[in-house]
């Protein structure tokens, strides 16, 4: 178990190094921080002094190591546009994005899995057909359009829910949460639904096809022959065996949720990391882009590790040492 975690962590190191190298290359070759920091009037001596002070006259790898040291200390430099430390900016925005992404993922799971089980068990009922049709439309609708439609219906026409911002937030230490106020929860509903809808349809389709496959197997027939009640056969035997692919996909989709949070945050003007990032892209604000890239990569590595650990919890075969030969 420990060896498994360690080998996973070791595999993550080259990925993180590659991403850091790309981030650093962006710093080093894109844009010229010296010109930006000096402004309009400067002498050549001033320029050289600044280059030396910033360490830009050092060889590439010396600079890269220094960059890595700074990143490990949480120092991502100053934003070109806002002139504030990037780490502070991201830390301010992080709670908003994480709350949105986790709510969306939870929503997708809590609605998607039961819908998938239902459509798998009763594949020819009219409700199943309705779910499947809706899911097909859900896959073809881009995130931003779902958001616009929801705003049109629930904010403009019905006027029930706010269409932008986080509502009132409560600060707990450096973490600000919108989950403790009524207006914060109301503001969260539309963005979370927008963000989670695609993942929900994906999970539903996955659970459905896995259920259909599992229900055909011999041990389900045997369980029925033993006279076990449907509830136990469906949930104890069938659903449990569909969980491995569901966990994989959900884990991978958590990454996609964080990426698509950029879109949702733009539609709803949600003050999260995604909005910060998209403004950075539009203004070519390299330090923010680089920091976001490293942070997202780190997040993905952690998610992948957690997914791998969950396999252990769900699939007993892996615990008995098959992990080494099962091809992963």
């Amino acid at each position, binding site marked *: 178990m420990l060896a498994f975690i360690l080998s996973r962590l070791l595999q993550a190191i080259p990925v993180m190094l590659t991403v850091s190298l790309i981030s650093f290359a962006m710093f080093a070759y*894109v844009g010229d921080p010296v010109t930006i920091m000096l402004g309009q009037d400067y002498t050549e001596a001033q320029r050289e002094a600044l280059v030396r002070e910033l360490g830009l006259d050092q060889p590439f790898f010396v600079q890269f190591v220094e960059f890595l040291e700074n990143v490990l200390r949480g120092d991502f430099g100053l934003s070109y546009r806002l002139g504030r430390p990037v780490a502070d900016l991201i830390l301010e925005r992080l709670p908003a994005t994480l709350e949105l992404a986790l709510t969306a993922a939870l929503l997708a799971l809590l609605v998607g899995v039961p819908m998938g089980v239902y459509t798998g068990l009763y594949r020819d009922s009219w409700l199943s057909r309705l779910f499947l049709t809706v899911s097909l439309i859900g896959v073809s609708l881009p995130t931003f359009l779902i958001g616009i439609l929801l705003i049109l219906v629930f904010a403009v026409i019905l006027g029930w829910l706010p269409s932008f911002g986080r509502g009132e937030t409560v600060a707990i230490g450096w973490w600000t949460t919108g989950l403790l106020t009524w207006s914060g929860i109301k503001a969260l509903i539309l963005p979370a639904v927008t963000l989670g809808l695609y993942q929900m349809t994906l999970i539903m389709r996955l659970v459905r096809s896995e259920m259909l496959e599992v229900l055909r197997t011999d041990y389900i027939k045997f369980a029925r022959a033993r006279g076990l009640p449907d509830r136990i056969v469906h949930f104890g035997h069938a659903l449990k065996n569909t969980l491995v692919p569901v966990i994989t996909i959900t884990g991978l989709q958590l990454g996609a949720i964080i990426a698509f949070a950029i*879109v949702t945050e733009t539609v709803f003007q949600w003050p999260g990391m995604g909005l910060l990032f998209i403004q950075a*892209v539009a203004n070519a604000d390299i330090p923010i*882009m680089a920091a976001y890239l490293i942070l997202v990569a780190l997040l993905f590595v952690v998610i992948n590790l957690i997914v791998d650990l969950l396999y252990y919890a769900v699939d007993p075969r892996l615990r008995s040492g098959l992990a080494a030969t099962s091809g992963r």
Partner: protein
Amino acid sequence: MRALAPLRRLARAVESDLWWSFTRSPTVVISALVAVAMIGSAAFAPWVAPHNPFDLATLNLLDAFTPPLWLEGGDPRFPLGTDDQGRDVLSTILYGARISLFVGFCSVLFAMTLGVTIGLVAGYAGGAVDAVLMRIADIKLTFPAILIALLVDGIVRAILPRELHDRIAIWVLIFAIGISNWVPFARTVRGSTMVEKNKEYVMAARVIGLSPARIMWSHVLPNVMGPVLVIATLQLGFAILAEATLSFLGVGVPPTQPSLGTLIRIGNDFLFSGEWWITIFPGAALVVMVLSVNLLGDWLRDALNPKLR
């Protein structure tokens, strides 16, 4: 000549099985008709569209915010209403779809070329080359495509001066979307290439002394192209959505050449003042286009792969 045999086989399949399964499903026939109609009217937008939305001389600000024909205050000249600058919404959709489709097709073509080349080389060469290329593909796959497209766009934006960037923005976009989608092509082609390279015809080609490049290009490639076309169709829907998303975020095509995504973004500002048609109609056009392409892709995948039936 032996390399042509599979092609002939494919031609026969199109005549029989594929056409048969095509005519059997009304959904597929309808989506094909819709796709052809949309692609056709978009391609011939200058002749089909009732107005030229970019001809400033014909625009009249007094026409701005005309609602669609069937609502009160509608104008028969503008069947789907007008936007804030008095442009006919139907015409802007046709011109916008043209740009969306162009970016979609080109980026899929780019992703396909890149992916097929990488897959062929990785599968044929094997060993360390294969390991390195597939490792890159793994890392690439860890990140959602849209994020990579955004990053590429952001970096190019930082490198190029603004005026130059606006002029080539469409190509930057095609590059960004294409580079974020080559992995599915590469993986599939690599898999089939590894199977094909051990077959007799490849051995024979090697024995008569053909160069590896020649073998890959004119012998292996025709035999692995089948699934590639399926992936290309499925990716087209994705590429169109990616373009719309990037343009909606304001980092796609420049406002002077609005695609469907740009139109939706512009219309989004007027949602609260009640002019919903400026954003909803381009949105509907986008959804219908992507849905029909996706349905076609799904059908093609099932029809060409008997194992899934």
